[in-house]
């Protein structure tokens, strides 16, 4: 089964043609991020991991790298379990 990280990378790969994304690479610095990607990324993590991105999660840091996205998903999942 694909790990969270693999799923995130697979999704992002669609946007970063011919570029292998490192886990800690700043996707904003790559210059590809536009509103289409930003929206699809939120839609992707919500659907794929069954979480809801809320107001407070809207922080570029949360979406800056594959690692950060994975951490955000982990935190949301943990919060859901403890809720």
């Amino acid at each position, binding site marked *: 089964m694909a790990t969270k990280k693999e799923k995130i990378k697979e999704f992002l790969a669609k946007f970063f043609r011919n570029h292998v994304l490192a886990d800690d690479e700043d996707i904003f610095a790559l210059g590809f991020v536009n*509103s289409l990607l930003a*929206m699809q990324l939120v839609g992707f993590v919500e659907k794929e991991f069954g979480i809801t991105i809320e107001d407070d999660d809207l922080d570029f840091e949360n979406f800056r790298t594959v690692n950060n996205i994975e951490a955000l998903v982990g935190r949301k999942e943990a919060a859901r379990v403890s809720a």
Partner: protein
Amino acid sequence: MSVLEATPAAAGVEGICLGLTEEQRKSRAEFRAFAESEVAPYAGQWDRDARVPDELLEELKNRGYLAAPLAQEQGGRGMDAVTYGLLTAELGRACSSTRSLLTVHDMAVVALARWGKPPLKERYLPAMAEGSLLGAVALSEPNIGSAATQVETTARKVGEEYVLDGEKCWITFGQVADVFLLLAQLEGKPTAFWVPADAPGLKRYDNDLVMGTRAARLARLELSDCRIPGDHILGRQGFGFTYVLNYALDLGRYSVAWGSVGIAEACLEASLDYTSQRMQGGALLCEHQLVQRRLTDMIADSRAARLLCYRAGYLRQLGEPAAVQETKIAKYFASRAANRCANSAVQLHGANGTTDNYPVARYLRDAKVMEIIEGSTEIQQIIIPRVRPEEF
């Protein structure tokens, strides 16, 4: 049970489902009956009057056509994306101004539902869901249109309030809206606000008259030291365009795409009728081969536009992230197809087509607007190829 539930593999995973459920068919028949009897016969007059009547707004509310896509648990009707598309297309076919009321109200509602803080939602959502309060979207300004993140309207926090200064224009149904989803710069960062029409410091005026959707009661807003409560912010500072407005615009594009299908099909129908009745050169117009060619292009264009909208609709129902891009593609194609069809419809009607005695001149004016709003054709051309389209 819906087709989607019954046959998930055939229905959605491939991104294409060519059948409507029994319920969707029934809904479409209901929408068409309403649009044909209560809207289409008067649309020309409303266009000349430059206003849809208040009774129509009331009727749309009573029928539950406002805020229809809002989830049931949030007080909406929870209409599925395809059925919503069918509603939009049927209204769009009858009267683009009427369709545009649903577009902007629903955009404001879904943005509030998604990004509003709980107290703001509790206060506004029930009335917006019911349609007793009307919403509109205030993004554009005299100097800023396509480059929306660069709006010049400013917001600053003063005590417990936000204070807004600036000007907005082209606001569809802004003359009658009770509240505006509005974008302003908060400390230089695009941020979305929820601005009641009666907020102190907000003045509204009728907008310059536009060529299409003329009855949509457009307004210009002046905000001068306009004060709103501190919880009337949607999303966080700096995320107002990318997430909040874009979330609304995604629905807006879907609505405009389907509305364009409505225009294209109305043009086709009017042209099939006209060319099968009018004789020229000893034959009906539709017997001339060059006329047949135009009709064929109209049929193909309106079919293709509808299919792209269905595809976007099914992907939306499945919650696929790619639905955002597919919706853009549908909007891009359908708005251009509507223009081609409307152009042909006027051409096929000859001089009659240029008068108010036939609806096709209105369709042409309305179609033009569809290529400008919710991201113009050029903006879609810039954005769509940025993402490799997913294969389904």
